């Protein structure tokens, strides 16, 4: 399921990048195009990282410290992601080759789009309901 979220997220990223790129190009030429591409990439990368971190963390399922490892990986990826995002925003804000407004709109479009993908995938996928309880005698 998380793989599907990542795949659909990538498709959505391409769509937003194309639309945002065209609009950005019309608004502000090459600067707008570049801002749209970078903004979309940032939004999809950073939102996709949560799903990716859960996929990585689930590789440890069945091990003794799975719960601890799971939350460490997922929360750790989350905090690192935000630190990197903050630094990127501060760096890109004053860059001359960036149109802040186009970038902001593309980031919001990417974040909201990925939310829609998440909800649609979760709502349409089957969730495992498997117990790991073993009966006496088994």
């Amino acid at each position: 399921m998380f793989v599907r979220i990542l795949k659909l997220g990538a498709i959505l990223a391409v769509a937003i990048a194309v639309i945002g790129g065209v609009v950005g190009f019309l608004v502000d030429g090459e600067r707008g195009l570049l801002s749209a591409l970078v903004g979309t990439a940032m939004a999809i990368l950073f939102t996709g990282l949560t799903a990716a971190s859960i996929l990585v963390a689930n590789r440890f399922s069945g091990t003794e410290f799975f719960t601890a490892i799971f939350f460490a990986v997922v929360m750790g990826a989350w905090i690192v992601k935000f630190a990197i995002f903050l630094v990127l925003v501060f760096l890109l804000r004053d860059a001359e080759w960036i149109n802040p407004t186009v970038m902001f709109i593309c980031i919001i479009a990417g974040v909201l789009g990925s939310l829609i993908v998440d909800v649609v995938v979760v709502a349409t996928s089957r969730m495992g309901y498997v117990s790991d309880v073993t009966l006496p005698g088994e």
Partner: protein
Amino acid sequence: MDATTVLAEINGNIATVGYGLAAIGPAIGVGIVVGKTIEGVARQPELAGRLQVLMYIGIAFTEALAFIGIATYFIFTN
């Protein structure tokens, strides 16, 4: 200058305060989401898989708020 106006003087971009505020909400949100998931798994370990998925949705929504909050830096100028 009058002493009362000097007391409340703030320099720089007031949007800086916004980044702090943008961090508080999602921090509380993710804390509650993760904490409640751990609680749920502790009560019913066999539901861990489903709770994990629901936790993912919860985190996705709270982090979206944080992303938008931080990205507002792009549009706030002075």
